[in-house]
């Protein structure tokens, strides 16, 4: 079995996205304030990671189109629910 380079690349991308959180946290540090921008970008990055896991690790890339659409729809759905819950909460605080 040839060593699969593609999976390695995928893992490196996922790991660097994880490490990006350290950088986000660093820039936000010192200011214990809630920031919509940070929250939104954190959620978006997490969803990008989820989609990569779907596509590459879970092999949706090679799955029937229906499953591709379904998982993509789920990623969008999660994003919409999370962001709207956050912003509704902020709005009616």
């Amino acid at each position, binding site marked *: 079995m040839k060593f699969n380079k593609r999976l390695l690349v995928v893992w490196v991308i996922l790991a660097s996205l994880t490490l990006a959180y*350290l950088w986000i946290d660093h820039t936000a540090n010192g200011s214990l304030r809630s920031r919509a921008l940070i929250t939104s970008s954190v959620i978006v990055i997490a969803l990008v990671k989820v989609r990569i896991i779907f596509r590459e690790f879970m092999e949706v890339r090679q799955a029937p189109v229906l499953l591709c659409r*379904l998982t993509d729809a789920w990623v969008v759905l*999660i994003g919409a629910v999370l962001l709207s*819950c956050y912003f509704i909460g902020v709005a009616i605080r």
Partner: protein
Amino acid sequence: MSDLAETTKRGRSVPGQPDMWAFVLFETLVFTAYFGFYLFSRARSPELFLHAQAQLDLRIGVVNTLVLLLSSWSVARCVQSARAGAYGPALRDAFLTALFAVVFLGVKMFEWARLSHEGNGFDSNDFFTYYFFLTGIHFVHLLIGFVVLGVLVYQLRGPKMRDQKLVETCATYWHTVDFLWVLIFALLYVVR
């Protein structure tokens, strides 16, 4: 090997049982609801959540995320090896997956012990209620994951078994545990 050739060779088929995908999507909806409640109450009382969140060590979360991503990578390799008929490497990767999962559980329990030692328990405040609830229910999914890995190893070991569909089903469950953690990590440790 090119992606296109691989696809045409095997045809486009659902990895694992479609039934497991139904479980993944349903369980993801349930978790989305948990996350929604969390973000909503977080946005309603930001100071409390921010101050409680400051007690978490982001580095532990990052390490755990990397460890779980490693385990996911291992199980993805395991599936590809099993598909190619290389059951030895596949078995090795399955054990590697379990090893990373054990590391994850160890780190998780260390973090729980540290937090409760500092006096942050399940019922301390809203943030820690969500923290212990979300990490706890994920922990339960991970424990179920060990049963799933057991099935995977059982399949790979017996020459009479080796049902590729079942191997992929188990891997799909494992990746679900992984991506749920990716979301939990982002929401608990980094969101402001």
